[in-house]
């Protein structure tokens, strides 16, 4: 499917079908460069600094070439900064299965933890360079591949920030391979494709949303022209205001109890949102509202708040046996959170991986070393198809603490 000839013929197709969508092209960089006023300002600043005669003797030092190479990993759309290398779709599938699928799904389709990576792009988009599902009337949730305009961005981000819990651990070749796998799953390249630093520019010409970006200079330059023009009307401005949206009653307490999130004194006091909306006159509610607000301070500091959202695993982890003191348990909680264990494992309910309770029940305390190895090296098959990614960044002491906790604590 992917050949140079195809790319050339597709360019013609693009120019034809482009008429159906509003015209967009690769963005015009000159819209973002300094305006004459800004350029004058820069020159004035340089002149002023020269007059101040700041020369910072003996502060900082020249960077070594090897240091710059170690940190300068960014890749621009023109591929400046791209590391040489190559990777096939097949190799990428292997890396994907062991290091990416646990969060993003086998085919990059999962929305469990992050926005889906793939889906919503079509063969036609590859031809036109515009993703038609992005149009408002299509009403399709956006995926990464629908929005992505340059393949450089995908390479750059995976190399710098993935996998989630071990960023910068992929080699350039592994990065090429993962990018190739994603491109293949999105039908941008064939399944037998090998992506290299020398053919990546040709791939760019097939990116589904390569021409889907625009810039609005007025929102980039400080003194540019805004895109809305309200006026400061002072009287007879609008018809009687009509309320068109309110929080539905069932969502009243979704963000926790309001009273427990506000000061207990003040001009206006937080209401008890565990109860329905207030009725009657303010004076009739005053005593109850104040009394409830005051009692939010007694007991737990976080009572009624929304702070437990998103870390159910680590919160549930507090029900431990006698074998660990509170400080050690805090430490385990911290290890679980910072290493993203709780993204996949909860205390007593199955998420992506088994719950800590299930693991606890399957293994005895004699299995600590075996379990530790599984955490370090990852594995699959024991609990289902989704593999557990390896955790090379975890210290031995931390692994042994976590295994001890899993095997000894009460996870109810």
């Amino acid at each position, binding site marked *: 499917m992917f050949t140079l000839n195809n790319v050339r013929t597709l360019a013609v197709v693009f120019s034809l079908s482009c008429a159906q*969508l509003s015209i967009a092209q690769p963005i015009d960089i000159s819209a*973002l460069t*300094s305006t004459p006023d800004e350029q004058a*300002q820069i020159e004035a*600043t*340089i002149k002023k600094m020269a007059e101040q005669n700041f020369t*910072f003797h003996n*502060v*900082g030092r*020249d*960077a070594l070439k090897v240091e710059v190479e170690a*940190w300068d990993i*960014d890749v621009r759309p023109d591929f*400046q900064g791209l590391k040489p290398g190559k990777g096939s779709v097949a190799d990428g599938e292997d890396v994907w299965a062991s290091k990416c699928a646990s969060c993003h799904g086998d085919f990059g389709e999962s929305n469990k*933890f*992050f926005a889906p990576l793939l889906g919503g792009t079509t063969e036609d988009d590859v031809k036109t360079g515009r993703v038609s599902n*992005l149009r408002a009337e299509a009403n399709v949730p956006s995926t990464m591949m629908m929005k*992505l305009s340059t393949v450089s*961005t995908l390479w*750059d*981000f995976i190399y710098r*920030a993935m996998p989630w819990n071990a*960023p910068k651990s992929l080699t350039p070749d592994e990065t090429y391979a993962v990018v190739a796998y994603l491109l293949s799953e999105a039908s941008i390249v064939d399944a037998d494709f090998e992506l290299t630093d020398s053919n990546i520019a040709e791939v760019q010409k097939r990116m589904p949303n390569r021409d889907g*970006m625009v*810039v609005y200079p007025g*929102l*980039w*330059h400080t*003194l540019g022209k805004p895109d809305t023009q309200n006026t*400061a009307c*002072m*009287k007879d401005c609008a018809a009687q*205001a009509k309320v*068109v*949206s309110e*929080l539905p009653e069932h969502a009243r307490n*979704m*963000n926790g109890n309001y009273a427990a*999130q*506000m*000061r207990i004194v*003040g*001009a*206006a006091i*937080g*209401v008890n*949102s565990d109860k329905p909306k*207030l009725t*009657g006159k*303010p004076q009739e*509610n005053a*005593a109850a509202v104040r009394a409830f607000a*005051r009692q*939010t*301070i007694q007991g737990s500091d976080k009572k009624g708040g*929304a702070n437990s*959202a*998103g870390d159910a695993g680590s919160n549930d982890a507090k029900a431990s046996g006698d074998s660990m003191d509170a400080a050690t348990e805090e430490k385990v909680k911290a290890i679980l*959170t910072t290493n993203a264990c*709780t993204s996949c494992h909860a205390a007593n309910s199955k998420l992506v991986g088994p719950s800590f309770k299930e693991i606890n029940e399957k293994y005895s305390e004699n299995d600590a070393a075996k379990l530790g190895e599984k955490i370090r090296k990852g594995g699959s098959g024991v609990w289902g198809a989704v593999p557990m990614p390896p955790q090379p960044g975890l210290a031995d002491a931390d692994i042994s603490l976590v295994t001890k906790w899993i095997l000894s604590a009460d996870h109810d």
Partner: protein
Amino acid sequence: MRDKRSSSQKRARLRSAPENFISDEFVSEVRQHGWDDARRSFIRKSLMAAGAALAGGGVARAATQNEPDQMITQPRPWSTSLGNPVAFHPYGQPSKYEVNLQRRQSPGLTAVSQASVAFSPLQGMFGIITANGLHFERHHQGWVDIDPTEHRFMINGMVKNPKVYTMDDLMRLPSVSRMHFIECGANTAMEWGNVAVPTVQYTHGMLSCCEFTGVPLKYLLQDCGADFKNAQFILAEGNDGSSETRTISMARAMDDVIVAWGMNGEMLRPENGYPLRLVVPGVQGVSWVKWLRRIEVGDKPWNAKDETLGYVDHMPDGTLRQYTSIQECKSVITSPSGGQALLSTGFYNITGLAWSGRGKIKKVDVSVDGGRTWKAATLNTPILDKCLTRFNFPWTWDGSPAILQSRAVDETGYVQPTKSQLVAVRGTRSIYHNNAIQSWKVAESGEVFNVHVE
């Protein structure tokens, strides 16, 4: 609402012998050891046991016309015992009665707490400065606490001499301290469609304002011999796992951008980029790269992940508008605001915050009738460039339903838009950069609700 236990008999006993709460032994113990938490708790228990009457379910009641206020007529423990010693808390903490004011996540917003947001409790904040512990958080791959002796800052790219600086190096340089707001480009994003969240903490709490201290980036660019003739952009990059990257214009880099280590007089908090972050006044928070490790000077934008997949405006024709940077002029009433209740009719000071990424706030108008009529609010000083400005507006509530709105105008003359005006230009699929006028409905009951109006 009078507690049934508060019989007049108990109240009488309480009044007649309040000093009996505190035994002689206790007083001498406090004299000897000071008033620590154990002794506080003892005294509180004594008070509560005897004093259900005093408090109506444990809550202090103000006096009615016929009944003197016992908070005045009765001795209180804090004025009749020895207080705590100095350095009791070597690093000071807010009163335990302030514990409700915390940064909080909005449930359901994100699935992973390392790539999430904790919102600032704007409903309880005064003036324009955000306390360091209440500054909003938004991380892309979790926060880190970097050993400052191991942190390095590099400048490379289109410069004569690529250089490396330690924290010691940077902190020797001429520094500035300036107050600026920082607002996430996704602040108020949940409100693009319908009302989604109840309180100002969640509608507008990805907003903070601090005095930042650091060295102007222009000095460092000059120190490295940046190619000002040909370079047009810089890339800022973090030292954390995400190593977040953002393109910033050279015009800004040479204007007011700061390489900052200080935040309200102390070092940055780890959640806010300790030991080094970029401060890009007026620009959305994602560009204020935290844990800053590198600036690259270049001649083209980078189209980084958060410049093409996120922080873009999804336009109705399906194009994605990228490189929107400025946080445009915006305001919000913080009191009274959603989730609160007015507990009587009469005078209220409507107060809130206004800000603009294009400069200073010129004017804020307030409407109490849903935008039909407007009157100018008073602006508190100082009114600073790209900084929060506090406004106040006197209001006497007569008990009838009201819809409160604020509308800010900045020094360029730009007027904060209505949501309908934003939607007319950017459609309904957008997420970021929502600076629409906020409406709070005050019901006859006194309860205040987040509403959208037309």
